[in-house]
């Protein structure tokens, strides 16, 4: 950290733990630096913050805010790991499962999937209280190296931001409104776009679920050795505190 930033550093608390933040940092960025994990799905390192999934909702000064967009403020008291907030996060994640077609047993992203890992972390094991919507969604396997299974899309928009801001291409975008909002490509199908398997938007880290599929690499890592078989989602951030 530069000397200038140190001078502008201030402190606030997350669940009673004192955290140092610097001007312009969001609550989540400061928490990440301090080794405190705040659950998130639509936010991803290297992409601009969007604040749409609301899984990162925390209470700051008694108000609910999305930690990935809310700037940290001096002396702020932030609540993160509370039963109430985790219950709301679990409901949000559960609704994402119900809005799409998430069949973990046949998904090649199982074990590497952030949605699934978030459900593990938030103890999503209760009997359901929402109906399964089971929508009819498109599968696009036209591209020689990439496939899109939008049954698994959670509309996090990470591919959209990665394609626009990192790749400078704008392959992905939203169409429709409300519950009918979908990720679409800027062509008749994926083969008609200039998407390449080397794009940042197509990389394994950007799509949190098994929606963007790189062909011929599925199941390379056996079940049991995948990312979230090693530990709960966020364990890498929490290990910074140990």
């Amino acid at each position, binding site marked *: 950290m530069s000397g200038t930033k140190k001078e502008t550093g201030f402190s606030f608390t997350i669940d009673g733990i004192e955290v140092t933040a610097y001007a312009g940092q969001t609550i989540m960025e400061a928490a990440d630096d301090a080794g405190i994990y705040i659950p998130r799905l639509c936010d991803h390192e290297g992409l601009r913050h969007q604040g749409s999934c609301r899984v990162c909702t925390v209470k700051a000064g008694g108000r609910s805010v999305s930690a990935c967009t809310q700037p940290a403020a001096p002396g702020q008291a932030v609540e993160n790991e509370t039963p109430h907030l985790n219950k709301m996060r679990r409901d949000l994640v559960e609704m994402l*499962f119900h809005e799409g*077609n998430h*069949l*973990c*047993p*046949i*998904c090649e992203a*199982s*074990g590497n999937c952030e949605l*699934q890992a978030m*459900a*593990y*972390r938030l*103890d999503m*094991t*209760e*009997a*359901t209280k929402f*109906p*399964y919507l*089971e*929508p*009819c*969604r498109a599968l696009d396997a036209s591209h020689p190296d990439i496939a899109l299974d939008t*049954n698994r899309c959670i509309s996090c928009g990470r591919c959209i931001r990665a394609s626009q801001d990192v790749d400078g291409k704008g392959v992905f975008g939203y169409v429709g409104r409300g519950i009918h909002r979908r990720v679409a490509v800027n062509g008749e199908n994926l083969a008609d776009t200039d998407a390449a398997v080397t794009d940042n938007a197509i990389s394994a880290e950007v799509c949190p679920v098994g929606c963007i599929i790189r062909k011929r690499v599925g199941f390379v890592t056996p*079940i049991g050795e995948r990312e979230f078989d090693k530990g*709960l989602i966020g364990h890498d951030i929490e290990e910074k505190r140990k």
Partner: protein
Amino acid sequence: MSERSQAEHPKARIATASLAGCFGCHMAILDIDERLMDLMKLVEVDRSPLTDKKRFTQRCDIGIIEGGCCNEENVHVLQDFRRNCDVLIALGQCAIMGGLPAMRNAIMHSDEPLRECLDEAYITGRYIRNTTHNVPNDPALPLLLDEVYPCAQVVEIDYQIPGCAPEGDIIFDTLSKLLTGKFRGFEREMIKFD
């Protein structure tokens, strides 16, 4: 156990059934392996494919359901379990969210997914050899539901053990804790959806 102490501590009764599933969750119950001996000290198995009993002989403490509801018989069996069991457990992904059988609900891209599914299976499928060119409709066959339903959308479910199939460890752990009154939720590292 002597007759007297058995009378003081009667064994719990459990029942199991397989609905629209692959029977893999019942196979997973057998994955409990030699610990089944410990479990059998605590329970007696009533209506179950394991005992081949087709009806409840008396009320059970725990009912274990594998698979979702794809036909009317599944619904009747599930309702029968709810009536006859104090605690009802949905075991595995099909019982919890419909699982693979529920793929027929969504991926047909049709206004009539069930009709399209049956046509493909019995009439128009590329490798079908069906000399009658009819969809089987014998009165003995249970009526198919329009969709495959998870158990919790049909009756109240008390506990769900996720997995496809759940490991023998989590089944044993959950059952033995429930039977001894020590169940306080699942260990996070044991929860698997796949």
